[in-house]
Each structure stands twice: as C-alpha cells, then as structure tokens.
C-alpha cells in the first residue's frame, strides 16, 4: 500500500514515464519539418524545368542529399504518429484499429527506407 496521496502519485512522470512520448515526438518532428518543408518547396521550384544531369547534380550535393534524407525521416515519422491518432479517433473496434495502425506503420517504414535508399543511390551515382 502506498502512503502517497492519489494527487502526489498523479503528479509523477506519467505512465512508465512514456505517456508524453507520442505527443512530444509529434511536436519535435513538426518543428524540424518547418525549415525542411520550406527548403523542399524551394528545391523543387529550382529543379522544376531542369534536365536529368542538373537534377542529379543538385540531388547529389552532400547538403541537399542530407537535407532530403532528414526530411524523409522526419516526415514519415510525423505521418506515422499522425495517422495513428486518426485511427485511434475514428475506429472504435479494437482489433480493426490495431491492424490499421500496425499496417500503416509498416507501410510508412517501408516507404521511408525506399526513399532513403533512392537518395543514397542518386548521391553515390550507383545507377
């Protein structure tokens, strides 16, 4: 039996100290995506009419490929966290909800890996 009052217990760090993790990572990735998104739009606008050689050169620069990979990781993480909340809000059947969340997470994980590998291939010229 705990001698703490219920309030004192509730003032702790939450469930296993991880209750805030989902919410916090959604915000951390959101902040990271502010400059990354603006850069992405700028980069796309710059190469809108460019030919193959120019696009490869632009994507292969260390700064651009690093920014692109950072954007991919932040965006897919952000998307996975967001889609999870959408499923949690709208699907009340527990089994369906869990399947939707897990399948979405795995798909987004696979897409992120594919995107990162493509950037690496372009950057290293292995095509």
């Amino acid at each position: 039996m705990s001698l703490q009052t219920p309030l004192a217990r509730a003032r702790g760090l939450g469930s296993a100290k991880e209750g805030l993790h989902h919410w916090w990572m959604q915000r951390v990735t959101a902040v990271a995506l502010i400059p990354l998104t603006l850069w992405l739009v700028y980069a796309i606008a710059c190469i809108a009419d460019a030919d193959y050689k120019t696009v490869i050169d632009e994507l292969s620069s260390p700064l651009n490929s690093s920014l692109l990979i950072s954007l991919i990781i932040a965006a897919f993480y952000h998307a996975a966290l967001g889609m999870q909340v959408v499923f949690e809000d709208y699907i009340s059947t527990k089994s369906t909800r869990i399947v939707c969340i897990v399948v979405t997470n795995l798909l987004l994980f696979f897409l992120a890996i594919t995107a990162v590998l493509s950037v690496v291939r372009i950057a290293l010229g292995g095509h």
Partner: protein
Amino acid sequence: MNGNNRPLSPHLQIYRLPLAALLSILHRATGVFLSLGTLLLVWWLVSVAQGESGFNNANAIIGSWFGQLILFGWSFALFFHLSNGIRHLFWDAGYGFEINTVARSSVAVLAVSVTLTVSVWLIVYL
C-alpha cells in the same frame, strides 16, 4: 467505424462548422492527404534513381495536366498544414487561445497558405 453497437458521439455532419472548426478538420484532412502524398515523393525518387529514362517518364506524368493538378493540391495541402501546424505549436506553448485571436489567426493561416501556394506556382510558371 463502430463495430460493437456502442453509442457514438455526434460527428462532423451533425455540427455547424464555424471557420475555426473547419480549419481544425482541414488540418487533419490535409495531414492524411500528405501522408498519401508521400507516395508521390517516393515514386519520383525511385524513378530518378532508375536513371535517365525513369526520370523522363516521371517528368512526363508530372508534367501532364493531371500530374500538375495533383501537385497543385499537394502544394496547397503542404502550405496549409505547415501554417496551421505553426499555429498549433503556439497553442501548445499556451498562446493565442482568445476567441478574437483564434478568429484572426484562422484568417491569417488561410491567407498565408493561399499566398504561398499561388506565389510558388507563379514563380515556377513565369
């Protein structure tokens, strides 16, 4: 989706939608749309990684009217989710909850996202 016959609280089609509520659901809708839109980015990167023919095929599809339409919708969704997301970060920090402020920031979010979308497309096309 409700599979266990428990009562549901009223949904979007029941409530009247003032601007703040409309932007709230639009934030979620654009979020889901952008999650699907990541397919576009992945597909383009894979095409470019395949070499010059893949790059040319992808550009032909993106350059078609349908591709441009998708890209236009994607750019607006991106700018809206970005501006409204910044507003959400201010709310998270505890600022901007007064009704007048919310009304003004709603209009600001819409104005900024429309302006950014139109500017980018003007810059690309002119």
